[in-house]
């Protein structure tokens, strides 16, 4: 069992990570983090260590992976298909219709293209 978290150094990414950790514990699944931020902003080394300790204590493994594909959406889907993960966790916030039309939406593409269940968490809650 593996849960994939699409992480980026922003509110959406944080939200996805918190929810992904919860989900991993709940499902007794390994955690797989895919960095999708622009310009390769990865998780802080210290944070990774903490997280790893936390997960190994529960008997679970942590992997961080990246893809050769440039587009974050494609990268997440590719890794999910390769590793045969059970769930993808993504964070999202409100996007206007025009904004999505002109600029596109990575989240939307992950939702539509994923071949496994996707858990979407709102970063801008009420």
């Amino acid at each position, binding site marked *: 069992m593996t849960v994939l978290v699409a992480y*980026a150094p*922003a509110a*959406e*990414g944080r939200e996805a990570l918190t929810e992904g950790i919860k989900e991993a514990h709940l499902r007794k699944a390994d955690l797989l983090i895919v960095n999708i*931020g*622009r*310009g*390769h902003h990865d998780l802080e080394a210290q944070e990774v260590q903490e997280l790893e300790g936390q997960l190994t204590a529960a008997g679970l493994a942590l992997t961080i992976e990246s*893809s*050769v*594909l*440039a*587009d*974050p*959406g*494609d990268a997440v*889907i*590719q890794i999910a*298909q*390769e590793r045969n993960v059970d769930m993808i966790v993504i964070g*999202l*916030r409100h*996007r206007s219709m025009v904004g999505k039309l*002109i*600029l*596109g*939406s*990575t*989240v939307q*593409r992950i939702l539509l*293209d994923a*071949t496994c269940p996707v858990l979407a968490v709102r970063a801008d809650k009420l």
Partner: protein
Amino acid sequence: MLDSAMAALASLADPSLLIMLLIGTVAGLIMGLIPGLGGTGAVAILLPITFGMEPPQALALLIGALAVVHTSDTVSAVLLGAPGSASASVTMLDGYSMAKKGQAARALTLAFLSSMAGGIIGAIGLTLAIPLARPLVLSFASPELFMLTVLGVALAAVLSRGNIIKGVSAGLLGLILGMVGTSPTTAEERFTFGSLFLGDGLSLVAVALGIFGLAEIASRASQRRGQKETITLGGGWGQGIREWLTHWTQVIRGALIGIWAGVLPGVGATAGTWLAYGQAVATAKDKRQFGKGDPRGIVGPESANNSVEAGDLIPTLLFGIPGGVPSAMLLGMLLTYGIQPGPSIITEHLDLMYLIVWSFAIASILGALFCFLSVKQLAKLTKVPFAVLAAGLVAVMLLGSFQEGGQLGDLWIMIILGIFGWLLKSTGFPRAPFLIGFVLAIPLERYYFLTDSLYEGFDWMARPGVLVFLAILILPMIWAFMKFIRARRKTNLDDGHRDEQPEDDEAPLKNSTWSLVASGIFALAFAAALISSASFSPEARLVPQLVSIGGLVFSGILLFIEIRTRLRAKAGRAGWTLDAGFALKTFVWMTGFLALTAVFGYLIAVTIFIPAFLLVVARARLKVAIIYTGVLYIVLLALPSLLPIDLPQGWLNTLV
């Protein structure tokens, strides 16, 4: 229309045209193999040979080369994992993975066939564009043509990869450089500093070969070692053909993306292939194999990078604004023949248009055929270290840029621009807008004055065509500004960026003292242009002044940003890198070669420069150096009798 198409095909039966097409195709294939040359290098090197020819022959030669450059650049990408051009690096992702699995033949089959199809579809696109654009183009008057030239430079600056401010600065500096020489309106000399040979303006070949060719050589000359791995082609020819047939939709999709990328100025083969790759990944349900040898990852991009060159020709020939750097040079060539692209080419030279289309399609097929037949030999060629090739390339490029004016001054300018081009390349300035600006400078000014004399005040601005172009001009800027704001606020996380290529190390000296120096040079050049244009007559100074004021604003912003980042970065990146030292050393070598030429003449300079460069810089064996020099010497000796080429004479020759 069909008549002229058939007539053009019949004219290709003329042996002299056919031979030129064949020579062009072979030359294009060879230049595709040499890293860094690409379509730009191929056209720039072949252009000087065409100076003595009739337009059809010259076009057959150049189009033949341009059509197949992206067919052969795949070979080294697939076999060695070292792409022959930036656009072939996409094919490397899946092609090299296949080769590592022992299926190089499968990857190459897919690539060659797709390249061929891309070329043919591109040619069809060009054909269809003629009747579609014809009524539109014929309705254009000077205001629209003026707006088109502005649009050509502006779009190239905005759409080029990297920073927009850098792109605009480069485009404006190109415009200034293009204005060197005689003013089109008042026939007074501008920016010539009293020099007689600058009066004709800078030579297009010298500028292109300097900014792209020499700069590329300098940044790669440090590659002394060739690939040592043994190359095996493996099997899978049949499998490749079968897979190509099953993925025919990807071939067509890739070609269409390529044409579109080609039509947009400044979006070249590199961006086009990445777009096609992104599209292939996006439309695939099973994405697991991408990057590990998925045939779809080869088919689409390979088809796209050939059709880009055809797409480039659409705006070039129909509207007179080059879609890319190679076509900017073609435009320059057509202008020297007195063929005005735009409305006049459609009415008066339709046969040439169709000749281009047919040449493109036939060369695409021939190119793929040659690649299949000679893939083993081509594979061996890719193992030659670049430093060894560089010696010959420098000699050929210097000889090439001598042909246009027959003056050594052009060669000095070429080397200076080579250093500048290297600086632009390594500090992340796009070079395409620079060259496009250079080519469009004179047409822009001419159309402006035509418009100004025909219309009262700003009445021309109200013409519907002009308004549409204004909208096209402004929209990308709003778009870019919006993206910039979103990036600042960090609200762009979810925005799609499928079309972006991955971060690469193309510009190793970005945000260093080097880029500060580059911005400083820009600001200085614009300031100097502004000051020296004050002495021109009012008509001659209007456009240069506007351009240099704009340039000062943009380069000022650039300088401000650079200084701020310099101040913020405490430790700062090392100013003098190993590669920079090597590149500058290469330029010293080139200068030495030119100095030798100036004193002893070209032939003697070659016999001194080539062995010295090979032994010292490339560290080649003595035997290689002797044979290399001998062969080159004989070829150069025979060349003037075969082709209309002059060898530069030195100071000593004038004494004898």
